[in-house]
Structure formats: C-alpha cells, structure tokens
C-alpha cells in the first residue's frame, strides 16, 4: 500500500513537472479519439438509416405500354423466379396516378397540368440484398417489356461509399494525430526520466525493481491517454445527443444509434487508449531507464 502511494505520488509529481507537455498530449489523444468515436458513430447512423431503406423498394421497372399485358405478366413471373428477388409488386397506371397525386398534393397547378396517361405501370422489386440491383439490370437488358429501370441501391451504395471514405479519411487523420500523441507521450516521459536521473540511479542501487521504477512513468502515460479518451468520448456522446434534436435529424437523417453500440465503442476506445498508453510508456522509458 505504501509502495502504491509512492507510485501515485511520483506519477502526479512527474505530471506537475511538465504541465504544458501533459496538456498537449491529452489534447492530441482527445482529438484523435474524438475523430474515431464520431466517425464510427456516423457510420453506424448511416447504416441504421440505410437499413430502413433496405426493407423498401430497391428496383422499379417501368413497363412499356406498347407491349401486351401478357408480356408484362411474363416479366413479373421471371422476376419472381430470380433467387436475389424477395418480392415483386405490380403497380398499375391508376395506382401510379394516385401516388403522384399524393406526392404532389401541395402543388395543384402541377396536378392540373399533368397528363396521367404518360405515367407508366411498373414492377416494384424488393431484393434480398440491395447491392444485387446490378444483376437485375443485367437480366432485364434488352427485354422489350421494359421501358426504364430505376434503382435505390445505387443511392444507398453511394451513401455507404461516402461514409466509408469519411471513416477512412478520418481514421487516417486520427492515426496521424494519434501518432503525434504517441511522440508527445514519449517525450514527456523521457523528460521526466531525465529530470529524475539521480533518483532512478539511487533507486537502482538500493534494489528497487525495474517494474517499480517504471510504474510512475507507465501510470503517467496511461492516465494522460485515458483522460484524453474519456473527454473525447464524453464530447462524442454530447454531440450525438445534441444531434438527435438538431436540424440534421429533422431534415436528413434520424440520429438512430443504439446505446449498446455507443457503450461498446466507448469501452473499446478506453481499452485501446489503455494499451496505447502502456505501449507508449514502454517505448518512451525503455532507453531512458536502461542507461
């Protein structure tokens, strides 16, 4: 217990000796962890939103009125036989007219002008895997009953690809800042070890174990790392809570992310920062304490 209090006392003494470096280290860890936390949360939010779409219509095949309804029926049956297709729903011209009227009910001028005869009947397809929409396009290529094909899969894919790019870029940036934090921790520890050179020499002569000599430095790195990450995670939670009631949530996305995922992310980041601190301290004092 007395040994432990010695370690804690010395950890705090070390940190007080170089306050600016300690502050810079905490900020670097904070920014890095915040970037990782927010981008991974954003990725999860986008996935949750697109998941909702995945239960909707993925491909709409507009039918050509110039071919017979038998050809339309054959097309519907062939679509239903494809393994990647979950359901196919026939949407008649009159249903298309009703849908149009509902969608544009706020624009009576437009509704008055439109010739509803041009609205085609269609087949609305729900796929087992929305990313298979290209297979459907290929299968229907050249089919005379098909007038036009539209997919929502493309939009989903674009959005997911955009968020993937966001995650990769933010992670690369977080890695760079994390590396800066790593260098800062190493420098802070080396300065602390240098300033305590005589004390360390005496401890060695007395018979203190290497682990015991290293502990204050290890604790320092771990504490700085954990403080930075804890603040970052706290900010991250606050940003998500704020966003739930923000204009973004009302206009673009539901900020739909589970607490379980956030807790998992928080614990993972804290665990990572613990390992990060241990590793940085190992590298930082290895040479300084072996002299």
């Amino acid at each position, binding site marked *: 217990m*007395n040994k432990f209090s*010695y370690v804690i006392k010395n950890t705090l003494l070390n940190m007080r000796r170089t306050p600016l470096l300690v502050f810079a280290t905490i900020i670097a860890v904070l920014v890095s962890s915040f970037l990782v936390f927010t981008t991974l949360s954003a990725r999860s939010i986008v996935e949750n939103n697109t998941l909702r779409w995945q239960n909707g219509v993925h491909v709409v095949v507009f039918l050509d009125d110039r071919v017979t309804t038998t050809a339309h029926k054959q097309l519907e049956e062939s679509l239903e036989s494809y393994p990647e297709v979950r359901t196919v729903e026939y949407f008649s011209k009159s249903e298309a007219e009703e849908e149009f009227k509902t969608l544009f009910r706020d624009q009576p001028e437009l509704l008055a002008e439109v010739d509803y005869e041009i609205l085609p009947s269609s087949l609305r397809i729900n796929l087992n895997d929305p990313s298979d929409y290209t297979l459907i396009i290929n299968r229907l290529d050249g089919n005379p009953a098909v007038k036009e094909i539209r997919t929502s899969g493309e939009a989903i894919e674009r959005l997911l690809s955009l968020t993937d790019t966001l995650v990769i870029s933010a992670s690369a940036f977080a890695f760079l800042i994390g590396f800066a934090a790593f260098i800062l921790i190493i420098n802070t520890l080396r300065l602390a070890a240098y300033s305590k050179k005589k*004390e360390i*020499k005496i401890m*060695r*002569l*007395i*018979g*203190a174990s290497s682990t015991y000599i290293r502990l204050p430095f290890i604790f320092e790195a771990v504490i700085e790392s954990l403080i930075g990450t804890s603040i970052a995670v706290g900010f991250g939670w606050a940003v998500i809570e704020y966003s739930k009631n923000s204009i973004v949530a009302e206009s673009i996305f539901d900020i739909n992310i589970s607490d379980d995922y956030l807790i998992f992310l928080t614990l993972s980041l804290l665990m990572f920062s613990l390992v990060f601190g241990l590793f940085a301290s190992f590298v930082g004092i290895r040479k300084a304490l072996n002299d």
Partner: protein
Amino acid sequence: MISLKNVSLVFQGGSVAISNISTQIEDGEFVYLVGHSGSGKSSFLKLLYKEYIATKGEIEVANIDVSKLPKWKIPLLRRKIGIVTQEPQLLENRNTSENIAFALEVMGSLPEEIEAKTNTLLDLVELNENAYKYPGQLSGGEATRVSIARALANNPVVLLCDEPTGNLDPDLSIQIVSLLEKINRAGTTVIMATHDSSIVNRRKKRVIELNEGKITRDELDGSYIVR
C-alpha cells in the same frame, strides 16, 4: 561471505579491467581495496553488485551466485548490499532525514517504521542536528555520512564503499572511516576502495591491492605503499 573465482572483466573494445582474480572475504571482515586510479578497484566493487557483468569466472555475494543471477533478480542482490559512491548522490529537494527515508520509502516500509529507522540512522551517523538541512547546506563529510546512512537503511549484510573519502580532507576522512569501522563492529562486512595511504596504514586492516586488474597483494593488517 564474498567469493571470486578466476574472475575477469573485459570491456567492449578489449580493455581489461579485471584479470583472472580469485579471493574470498569472510562475513564481518573490513577490507581496504587499494591501488592507483584505473587499477580496477571500482570495477571490482561493481562486479559484486552486478553493475558490471563478469566476462568469466564465478562470483558469490551473501549466498547469491552473482555470475548466474538473471537481470531481473539483480534488485534482490542489491537489497543485501549497501552501496556508497564517491559522490554522495543526495536528492537536492529532500533534507537529510528525507534522503535517508527515501531508501525505506522505495522498499515499501510503513511510515512509522520509516520514522523510527531514520532516527536510528541519524543517531548512528551523528547527524541529528542536521536532520532538516538540505544537501546544499551540508559539508562534504556530512553529505557522505547521509549517503552511508541511506546505504544502511535496509540492513545490508555487505557495505561497498567506492572512495567515500575521495573528496574529503584528512580529518573528515578519519571520521568517515571511524564510522565505517563502527558499522563493521556491528557485524556488517565492509569493503572500502581507496587510494588514501594515510588512512589504510593507520587502521591495520586487511588490504587487497589491485594493479592493472590483478591482485598484487592481499595482507591481513596490511599497508598501502604508494609506488
């Protein structure tokens, strides 16, 4: 008991610090290690507490086989040895009492034990009046006595002193040697490296003389003839 059998120490680059020496020092002995600068006195002592690792030979200190001792067990060896260096190596931000207590704190002693032991050691080295003085306020002899008290804090069975009187005038040197003899009389084996012939010749103790890393003389009630 301290025993060295055919011990050599060769540094990287080939310079020979210790060359095939063998000797034995019994428990409770007081031994002067003499020789001119560079004769191997410090290397001899550093081999005993494994600051240097012998290139060949066998070393045993306080029933520990130093030659085969793995690096992680060196602290266990040093807990049985007190080490006093020529520079007292005191912590400037701690007073006399705290410098002595430091050794006990590091080894995890309880606060009440630290206080009692520190007071006993202050008595032993006769520094009670200087207990709250900082190293900058102490004379050379007083600083060396603090360093000796700190080395004794964990009840070592062997005390290794590497030229503790090197920076002191003759009177202070005699005081330090008297203190070391007092410690020796209490049962601690003392090995003191010195090149001060006036001290060695006056005290009539065992003398081991080193020259170019070899033992050239080993005499009970010996003397040190400066060549």
